[in-house]
């Protein structure tokens, strides 16, 4: 990880990299999603879930991304807090709304799968509740940053919140093992290999990669926007002083 602080400390290098990387990730996401959705829609019905198995191809990647983005938020917050890198802080700020959106997507699509399979849109199960807490952490992070006039103080407070909130990640991951939950256990990332049939596993993995590429593209675009905002505000301040 020694390259990360060096990379993050150079906004010009980042802007040059993100200029071509953001559209490239976007195109990759569209291509992966097209193949993933085709395989997902042509896969046979599940013997238990029937047609609702197709919701899995959009729900599970959203759930993966909701946690992965929080890891990105935590790492960026740590780098911003310890090394005071402005670009790491911009990366954290840019990740939070995307994380909230993916988490909301996981909750809503999961709820739409749960109604026909469990008989309820929502249950206060350990997995669902801990993911709801994750969504609230994202919202709290965004609200905290917006609540203070002093942007540096807001960034520090939000970074501490993000790092404290990281304790929720292992709780989400192990909730299905630690508690007796309605939500099924992991079926892809298992020590003894995936338990899913290849006909469902491949479209799911492709959709996971598509979501990851989409996040990569959108994150870079949002960081670029944040860099422009900070540059514009610095320019406005210089103009006001002149």
């Amino acid at each position, binding site marked *: 990880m020694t390259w990360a602080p060096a990379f993050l400390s150079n906004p010009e290098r980042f802007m040059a990299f993100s200029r071509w990387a953001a559209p490239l990730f976007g195109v990759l996401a569209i291509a992966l999603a097209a193949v993933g959705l085709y395989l997902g829609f042509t896969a046979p019905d599940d013997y238990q879930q029937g047609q609702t198995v197709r919701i899995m191809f959009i729900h599970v990647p959203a759930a993966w991304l909701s946690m992965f983005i929080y890891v990105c938020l935590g790492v960026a917050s740590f780098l911003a807090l310890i090394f005071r890198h402005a670009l790491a802080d911009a990366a954290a700020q840019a990740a939070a709304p995307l994380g909230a*959106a993916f988490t909301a997507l996981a909750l809503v699509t999961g709820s739409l799968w749960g109604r026909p399979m469990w008989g309820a849109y929502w249950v206060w199960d350990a997995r669902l509740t801990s993911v709801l807490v994750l969504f609230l952490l994202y919202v709290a992070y965004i609200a905290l940053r917006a609540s203070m006039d002093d942007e540096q103080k807001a960034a520090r407070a939000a970074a501490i919140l993000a790092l404290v909130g990281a304790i929720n990640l292992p709780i989400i991951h192990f909730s299905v093992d630690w508690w007796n939950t309605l939500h099924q256990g992991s079926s892809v990332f298992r020590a003894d290999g995936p338990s899913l049939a290849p006909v469902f596993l491949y479209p799911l993995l492709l959709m996971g990669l598509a979501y990851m590429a989409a996040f990569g593209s959108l994150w870079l675009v949002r960081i670029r*926007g944040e860099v422009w905002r900070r540059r*514009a505000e610095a320019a406005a301040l210089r103009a006001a002083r002149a």
Partner: protein
Amino acid sequence: MFGKYAQFIIPAFAVTAVVFAGMIGFSLNHARRWRKRFEELSDK
């Protein structure tokens, strides 16, 4: 299409499409707006 589960599957995909469209629209708009603002201030 989707049989008796259409009322759950179609909204799930529709919500996903709307959220992705929103994320793309807001992200691009945010970046473009501030880039334009910076360029305006730099020209002065």
